[in-house]
């Protein structure tokens, strides 16, 4: 649904028929004209207006009010639930919410809830969810814009609200429930009712789900193309289930690896054969891994060939680990390293350039790379590097290049203008 900001008047230019309409004989009063516009014309105009403008327009006359309530305008809706004490943003008006539930619940197809960090907002979202009984929702998104407030809602309340939608919609294709207290039984309900249509499931950081729960989803929902979860839910069985013959090609698999405290979580390893089965089945799949671990916790990872395509290291990652990545991640497309240490990463980068032939994007912050090593890296990658985001402090001038020369040298090899990322120094 389009959300134009232009008012009603300027729409005349888009619809020439309207302009002609306006040139009617003077004995027809303007008020009669506007009120007698055909429904489909008003509908087109309304689609360009923001919700607020549309709501205002709807109180002009009965005809426009009817158009305002056309099912087509209510397919897509985003509920914004904010409290003034915890957010700077406005909330969807409670009267409007009531109207939608009363009149338009059955029209809703693409629904999302944006809540702030207050528990009340999350509870309000759950209340709305439990009232969406007669609906055919296709897309559902529960988004916490700040702190994950859904986790503060009582699990029973949340699960019962979510189950209402799972049971009644029967044609859910895309669900985003990251950072929520969803659990295994609710996933079972989801599968029981929507296994044919489910295509996308994002559930990172849902601590109440177990590997068995997500395995059930993979087993039954053969149309699943995109999945996002935490590492503890990943298992060999899951990868094999996603590679079964009946299953469609997987397009996107996102895995978050998060640690609470150093040494407290034990990370299991995934067998190489399971990864290979997945790649055989879905050769084009994007495997995205986000790491938020302490340096010493990386042991179980990348010991064998891993088909990851996008790697993000949110905290420091050791030199040795980057070396391993160069050896074992041939499908690597994007690499982001937030921090490393004070030893130059020249060797590791060059190995990555050699062996990761699909690498197109790299980002480095708080690392050290000598200028010559960096130039070597860029030379080997050449123009395939579309994203090269290096913080200025990363590059260490040496005898071959200083900071002024590095940017022209790198630009030359990349075939376009390039500068390191800068941060203000004041």
């Amino acid at each position, binding site marked *: 649904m389009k959300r134009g900001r232009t008012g009603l008047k300027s729409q005349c230019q888009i619809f020439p028929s309207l302009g002609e309409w306006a040139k009617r004989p003077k004995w027809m009063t303007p008020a009669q004209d506007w009120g007698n516009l055909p429904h489909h014309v008003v509908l087109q105009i309304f689609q360009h207006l923001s919700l607020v403008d549309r709501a205002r327009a709807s109180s002009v006359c009965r005809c426009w009010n009817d158009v305002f309530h056309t099912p087509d305008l209510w397919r897509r809706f985003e509920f914004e639930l904010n409290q003034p004490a915890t*957010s700077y943003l406005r909330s969807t008006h409670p009267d409007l919410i009531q109207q939608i539930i009363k009149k338009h619940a059955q029209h809703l197809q693409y629904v999302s809830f944006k809540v702030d*960090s207050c528990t009340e907002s999350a509870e309000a979202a759950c209340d709305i969810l439990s009232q969406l009984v007669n609906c055919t929702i296709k897309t559902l998104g529960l988004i916490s*814009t700040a702190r994950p407030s859904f986790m503060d809602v009582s699990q029973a309340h949340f699960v019962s609200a979510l189950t209402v939608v799972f049971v009644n919609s029967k044609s859910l294709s895309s669900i985003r429930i990251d950072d929520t207290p969803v659990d295994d039984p609710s996933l079972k309900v989801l599968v029981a009712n929507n296994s044919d249509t489910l295509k996308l499931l994002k559930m990172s*950081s849902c601590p109440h789900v177990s590997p068995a729960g997500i395995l059930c989803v993979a087993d039954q929902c053969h149309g699943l193309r995109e999945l996002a979860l935490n590492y503890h839910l990943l298992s060999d069985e899951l990868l094999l289930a996603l590679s079964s013959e009946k299953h469609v090609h997987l397009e996107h698999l996102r895995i978050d690896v998060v640690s609470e405290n*150093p040494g407290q979580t034990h990370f299991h390893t995934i067998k190489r054969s399971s990864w290979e089965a997945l790649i055989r089945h879905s050769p084009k799949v994007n495997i995205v891994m*986000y790491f938020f671990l302490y340096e010493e916790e990386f042991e179980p990872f990348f010991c064998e060939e891993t088909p990851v395509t996008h790697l993000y290291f949110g905290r420091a990652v050791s030199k040795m680990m980057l070396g391993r990545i160069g050896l074992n991640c041939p499908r690597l497309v994007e690499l982001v390293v937030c921090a490393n240490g004070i030893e130059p990463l020249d060797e590791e980068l060059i190995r990555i350039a050699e062996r990761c032939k699909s690498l197109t994007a790299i980002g480095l912050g708080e690392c050290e790379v000598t200028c010559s090593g960096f130039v070597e890296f860029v030379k080997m990658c050449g123009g395939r590097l579309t994203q090269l*985001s290096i913080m200025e402090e990363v590059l260490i001038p040496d005898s071959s290049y200083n*900071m002024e020369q590095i940017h022209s040298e790198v630009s030359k090899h990349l075939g376009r203008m390039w500068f390191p990322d800068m*941060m203000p120094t*004041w």
Partner: protein
Amino acid sequence: MVVNTIHWFRKGLRLHDNPSLKDSIRGSDTLRCIYILDPWFAGSSNVGINRWRFLLQCLEDLDASLRKLNSRLFVIRGQPTDVFPRLFKEWQINRLSYEYDSEPFGKERDAAIQKLANEAGVEVMVRISHTLYNLDKIIELNGNQPPLTYKRFQAVINRMDAVEMPAETITFEVLKNCVTPISEDHDEKFGVPSLEELGFETEGLTTAVWPGGETEALMRLERHLERKAWVANFERPRMNANSLLASPTGLSPYLRFGCLSCRLFYFKLTDLYRKVKKNHTPPLSLYGQLLWREFFYTTATNNPCFDKMDGNPICVQIPWDRNPEALAKWAEGRTGFPWIDAIMTQLRQEGWIHHLARHGVACFLTRGDLWISWEEGMKVFEELLLDADWSVNAGSWMWLSCSSFFQQFFHCYCPVGFGRRTDPNGDYIRRYLPILRGFPAKYIYDPWNAPEEVQKAAKCIIGVHYPKPMVNHAEASRINIERMKQIYQQLSCYRGLGMDRICLTRGNSLNLEVIIIMIIISIQFIFFQLSNFHEGAGAHHPGQSSSVCCGALIIIIIMMMMMIILLSGFFLIK
């Protein structure tokens, strides 16, 4: 005709390179240099004791320098719009001079004063000396838009005319016959107030680490240049534990208040570079500090909403959290992360922190951990940081919270790791957080991970003597990077890292769209040409033209079929 002049000091608290003062002295009979203490100006009621002390020391220094020239500084309390009409009449003023203030509120205030001056028949002389260049010229050169990336800014600077030379320092020769009428009760009426007189509690206040004033500024400039010459290296210095401490050659607060002229600094740097590097042209990076300052002034000058998110055209609208409790913990150095707390403690005690330390705490407050609005952080810095003025402070906060300037948001400063890499021994922490002195270097950055015996030996139990960490950094940064991604995905102009899925699929569809558009255009072109050709040739060779026409039609049909196939493929992918 007797010419009585007022020179109005706001920033530019110096007698060297003060072109507005110098020009207004010429032909004047009397000169009075005034400073108006306007406590309500632009929210400066949010100014901490260190900033007030610095300002008062600057004013004392000015007064002392003017005394040497048989003049004095007149400090007047009140609002400019009230003060000036009174002064114009009382002192029979016909000339007013001041340094140009590029900030939006400054411009508004000055416009009001100009109007008052015009009504009173007072000539106004304004000169640019707080910035290296005329900012309006920079904006003009960039197509009437302020450059929004630093690199673009540097490119525009390269095309500007050279920086103007600093004006001559005010001396007896410059003053010539110009006198300042000083009354017996000058100190009572117009003297520089003390901190106590302004209502501050000065018990237990330590000596200023950064003493204010032009004299101090010029001394520091000499030391700064000496050190650079001695090192003979103009590269960016590597960050180490010592860089975190206040440096006796640091210049940023003096540039902010105008005790040191940025143009003087610029030329002295240039001269030194040419001397040491044997006449090579200095690179732009030599003036990094000055150019960043200039950049933010330029971006802010025409944007009165520059310090806000709401209504600010260059600021990304991010759904920040409202959490006064968390904000207070950050501001007061009680987050439970020693690195953050030490930095905020140094800031509160001394009024200056290293720029990388600023990055660390700003990231922690906004997009890294607490997800609190950068406007709140900006207000805290405004209160405590000596060199934070409106434009530079707001601009830097927007930059560091990735709210503007097309910043890559992937890099997050870890509140544990970053400090540990900078100062592995932890001396900085021990200096500003004495309670943690007993912790060994291994645990001083994350004392909550220290075993009980270590905590007992250090006589500091986490949770009792020092707070527990207020967030789980791994979880917080995971959630926040996700938030930033969601926001940036909706910005059509963003093409950067971390977009994984969206980047790839959008890239594909974009290419298809381009191909389709090109095909449509080429078909229209061919059709148009053929119809012209047909019209032109039809009269002479009817047979040939019809066969050509058929051929053209066939080509068009084939292209349309291709287009349909491609379009259907495009929709299938979608």
